[in-house]
């Protein structure tokens, strides 16, 4: 079975500052890491490959240095991967990102199963996976908690639907998005890292894609435009309430009421 996992490089810390004037994330000096949600989908893919046979590849879209997360996935057990990188892809919203990734996947070959993480920790939209499946015209299940069996070219999954847990089958090839925290991702191997030779990733740019219309990619392919990014207002005011439980709850109630929150 051939499994492809979509991964993304995100800022290494959740405390990335936003330039109050330009609204741009201050990425200088901030380390990056593999999106934590993608670790669960990678682990799911690697354990499925171990159980049912097959191999795991990864794909990402980003600047050339995003290759480091392809390497990291290799250190966890993936075979290799693809970086989709081109200035024409910059400024892509969810729609343009999903379209670019779907074009990239088509160039990578045939896969039985594509797994995405639930969301990224920088974008947090949780929409790319489902949209990629639309562009590839394959079925999709989101919020997958577990893959229970693979039989007769069908995937049997348990998925979370807000207040319900559903079990369903889905025809292969398909795309699933894994929920967060569904497993404990394996750790990258230092031993494998020492053997990396630099040929773990191939690079595809706009020129490699079938669709050569630049209006479908990047900023111009985006249906939405970000007007402004700004940090939420911070309130560092702290109040400590002393007393026993009754006194504390009384004082807290008064405080909330005085602020007209209730």
């Amino acid at each position: 079975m051939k499994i492809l996992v979509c991964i993304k490089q995100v800022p290494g810390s959740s405390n990335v500052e936003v330039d109050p004037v330009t609204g741009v994330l201050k990425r200088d000096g901030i380390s990056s890491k593999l999106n934590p949600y993608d670790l669960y989908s990678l682990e799911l893919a690697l354990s499925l490959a171990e159980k049912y046979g097959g191999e795991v590849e990864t794909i990402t879209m980003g600047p050339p240095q995003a290759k480091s997360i392809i390497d990291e996935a290799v250190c966890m057990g993936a075979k290799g991967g693809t970086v989709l990188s081109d200035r024409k892809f910059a400024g892509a919203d969810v729609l343009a990102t999903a379209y670019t990734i779907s074009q990239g996947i088509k160039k990578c070959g045939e896969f039985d199963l594509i797994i995405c993480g639930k969301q990224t920790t920088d974008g947090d939209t949780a929409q790319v996976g489902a949209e990629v499946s639309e562009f590839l015209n394959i079925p999709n299940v989101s919020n997958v908690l577990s893959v229970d069996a693979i039989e007769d070219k069908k995937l049997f999954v348990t998925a979370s639907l807000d207040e319900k847990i559903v079990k369903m089958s889905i025809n292969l090839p398909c795309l699933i998005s894994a929920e967060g925290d569904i497993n404990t991702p394996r750790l990258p191997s230092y031993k494998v890292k020492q053997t990396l030779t630099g040929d773990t990733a191939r690079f595809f740019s706009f020129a490699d894609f079938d669709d050569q219309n630049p209006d479908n990619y990047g900023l111009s392919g985006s249906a939405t435009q970000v007007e402004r990014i700004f940090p939420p207002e911070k309130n560092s005011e702290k109040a400590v309430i002393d007393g026993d439980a009754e006194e504390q709850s009384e004082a807290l109630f008064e405080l909330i009421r005085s602020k007209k929150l209730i």
Partner: protein
Amino acid sequence: MYNSLTEKDIQALKNIAGDANVLTGDEINPDFSHDELGGVSKMPDALVSVRTTEEISAIMKLAWERCIPVTVRGSGTGLVGSAVPVCGGILLETTKMNKILELDRDNLTVTVEPGVLLMELAAFAEENDFLYPPDPGEKSATIGGNISTNAGGMRAVKYGVTRDYVRALTVVMPNGEILKLGGKVAKNSSGYSLKDLVIGSEGTLCIITEAVLKLLPLPKVSVSLLVPFPDMKSAIEAVPRIFGSKITPTAIEYMSRDTILFAEDYLGKKFPDTKNDAYILLTFDGNTEYQVEEDMKAVADLCLSIGAIDAYIVDTEERKKSVWSARGAFLEAIKASTTEMDECDVVVPVNRVDEFIKFTHSLAKEMNVRIPSFGHAGDGNLHVYICRDTLSDADWENTLTICFDRMYKKADEFGGLVSGEHGIGFAKKEYLKKQYGDTPIRLMQGIKKVFDEKNILNPGKICF
């Protein structure tokens, strides 16, 4: 020799601490009769929740005058019965004294009340870009308790123990007198170090009501390595080799597969790798990624060259959490795996850790009892647990006595000591006496008498 609390005494306590903060008889939750391990238990006659140094001083004046025993308790996470009021009397509970009073950025100190929890202090320091290095596994312990046992923890390999980070203490003497010991100073050759006598004295000399603690700038980069070995022998033998490489990791912990599986069960959460029998977990910290990476690589290469199966990189918050949360739960996990247990917290020279662990394995076999262990391979402090499982009362007592006798004897042979960080309290005092002999114990008793002539403060502990 002690007086019992009278109605008048209780009214006096209520006048000092407030009616709601003084409980007696059935009003006291039975949890206050024991600590985390529960080997010794005794209910106090009165439980007083204190809030200020002055309150404690007033209570001690009363207790001194009336000759009533007083025991101090923080979160009750101790393991040797130090906070158990074995002679009854008053139990002073300090968890309401939980304010962080001052962060002195010029002198790199933080001033805290004794009831501040270790996890609260650690988080506060980090929020302000500082590190409070002592890192005992029990994060819900109070700082007062940590100072009272001179707790060590995982980062002791590089940064030392609680004692190394206590600059000054405000204490209440058994007669109620308030003293300030030490100061916000980096050096101190001013007579006997009374502050250092108080650290590790388990509440027997005086009551800590405020502490000035030293902070370090927060290292900017920290990476851990989880290194699997085919067996415990090769894992532990790697430790002296790592020290020989002149690289000092922040922490070196060892853990067996069995212990990890207990933690998985207890937490309901899988550990990232359980394929191998033994692991060492190392942490490296520093201010640049390059430096930390170089240290990590050197140690990973060394481990691979001496039999490690791999070296897994633990480099993000999520990965650290998946590994260290299991490490933090080992004690509770082993406790949950058995009906009852008792612990041995010996410390041996680092190059004897392997032999000591092997000894516990052969002892377990010989006595037909489970003796799981984990601990600080990098500083020789081992946490060894004897599990009761299905043993009868008589067999359990007998097994415990034999196992403890033999383990402490073996530690002594290796040049080790009875306790690395949990203290002596009530449970281990016989072993301390056995190891130290008459003169050191007599000196300790003399010190206790000078501080507390009437022996009212935490009586029946350490050397009495």
